[in-house]
């Protein structure tokens, strides 16, 4: 047996640095999250700080911002799930109907592009599109066709913030998200379509009865993963898009953790909020997965 291990010595050499990294950068923070139950003292460290039980969780639940943070987080996630989730599926279905190969390839290349730039860049681009002065293109267009009388400061009005978040999320991710569905679509049996045409099924009926069932398992898996991250409203995006004028609608769990923990150095409460989020996410994932299995589909776990 020890000879077997010696024979594999190089393989162990390959794996061990990674194991050490995971212990330090993933498992140590899991221990460090104990500060959520302690009154964290920088000098004393995690181990020696005083236990306070669930004090910081209760502090968060009774924070006067708690309701609006939860509502913002869940509402933005739900809107993304409702509108943003089907968008790449629809794009994939549309692309699938395109017969001209060149056109299809160019459209794909163009729509994938925003995925490769950061949210900082996307928010810069959108800010420019929607700006009031310098002839922001959206305002100019809407005024020209007579829908607006005067330019609107889209980024400064809390009522528009959720809409902007969902729209820019689709703009950035629709192309990239469609890849996986396109791959699934190419796996649908061509014979089925031929048979359907023989039976006189219309394009729409073919889509409904052959294409969609063909990619159902892909849709379900991605749906489970999306519901599992219901408390991830999209930190990167919202943090870079928010501004003081829209804060009432823009504060989500993750941005709260960032401001409280990093900028105000209230480590314990921020850690408690982060832990609360992780646990709810895990429970949601398991619940949806179980539900999907009860409905007779294959889950992710």
């Amino acid at each position: 047996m020890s000879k077997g291990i010696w024979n594999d010595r190089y393989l162990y050499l390959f794996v061990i640095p990674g194991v050490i990294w995971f212990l330090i950068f993933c498992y140590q923070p899991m221990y460090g999250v104990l500060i959520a139950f302690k009154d964290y003292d920088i000098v004393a460290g995690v181990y020696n700080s005083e236990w306070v039980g669930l004090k910081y969780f209760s502090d968060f639940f009774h924070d006067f911002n708690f309701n609006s943070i939860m509502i913002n987080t869940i509402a933005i996630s739900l809107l993304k799930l409702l509108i943003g989730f089907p968008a790449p599926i629809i794009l994939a279905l549309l692309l699938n109907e395109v017969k001209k190969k060149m056109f299809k390839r160019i459209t794909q290349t163009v729509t994938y592009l925003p995925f490769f730039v950061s949210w900082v860049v996307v928010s810069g681009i959108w800010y420019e599109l929607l700006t009031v002065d310098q002839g922001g293109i959206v305002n100019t267009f809407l005024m020209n066709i007579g829908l607006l009388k005067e330019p609107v400061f889209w980024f400064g009005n809390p009522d528009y913030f959720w809409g902007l978040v969902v729209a820019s999320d689709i703009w950035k991710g629709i192309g990239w998200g469609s890849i996986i569905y396109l791959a699934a679509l190419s796996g649908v049996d061509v014979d089925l379509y031929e048979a359907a045409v023989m039976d006189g099924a219309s394009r729409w009926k073919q889509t409904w009865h052959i294409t969609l069932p063909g990619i159902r398992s892909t849709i379900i898996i991605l749906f489970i993963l999306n519901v599992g991250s219901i408390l991830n409203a999209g930190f990167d995006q919202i943090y870079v898009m928010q501004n003081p004028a829209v804060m009432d609608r823009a504060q989500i769990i993750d941005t709260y953790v960032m401001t409280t923990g990093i900028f105000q150095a209230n480590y314990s409460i921020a850690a408690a909020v982060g832990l609360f989020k992780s646990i709810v996410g895990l429970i949601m994932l398991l619940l949806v997965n179980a539900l999907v299995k009860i409905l007779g589909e294959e889950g992710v776990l």
Partner: protein
Amino acid sequence: MRRHWGEKVFSVFNYTILCLLSFSILFPFWRILMLSMNDGIDSLRGGIYFWPREATWSNYIVIFARSEIIDAYKVTILRTVIGTVLSVFLTAIMAYGLSKRHLKGRKFVNAMILFTMFFNGGLIPIYLLLKDLHLLNTLWVYIIPALYQLWYIILFRTFFQQLPASLEESAKMDGANDLIVFFRIVVPLSLPIVATISLFTAVGHWNDWFSGTVYVQDPKLIPLQTLLMKIIRENDSAQMIAGSLSTVSQQSVKSVTSYSVKMATLVVTILPIVCLYPFLQRYFVKGVLVGSIKG
């Protein structure tokens, strides 16, 4: 006959929608480029859509006259190159070890790394850890915490498992050890997946603004994306112009506005990606598809 007509209508509708979508994505990028090449004060009049009206390089002259952008470029390139090389190398060798089914302890390690997908300590414990390790305010804070990513380990592992075992076996018969097998036989066969994961890792490094915002205060160590965010959000561009006035001749700067400087900074930040991306796109797509088979 009627169905034929319906299909034509659908076809026209379909092509129109897709063209509009492509336009709505390309045009904003194009317009930023045009505005960055237009005289700042002239841009304030509006009406610049497809071409610059008073073409000028002064926006670029201004941003490159200051050390911020140059420093940020250096930091970004350095972290992207070092980070990608180290990360891909370490991820590949780890995944190769884990792809060997006979390796003792393999299941335990797989379970250990998979668990991190479902639960993590969160931002604050990681921040405190990096602080204790004295990584804050160093270049390494961009590289070390990002060395391994579960998803890339899985991609590599799946790829290695699909390689024909006979090649490695025959090399072993000739007395080659795992080191030689990996570097002489496996790596040359794995160049497509190496390319794909290198690209993903490099784009991740290039686009990361978060580490620079949270873990670093030293202005000389700020990457491009973090600088861009500061310029967009906090009107640092006004300072930048003011600072440039001393270094650049007055004449070329007078028509620069904080707005046109923002546009030029945006272009400088995305240009490398936008230029390289069309050539590399197929590698990216391959990465998504390899992973989705078994994930």
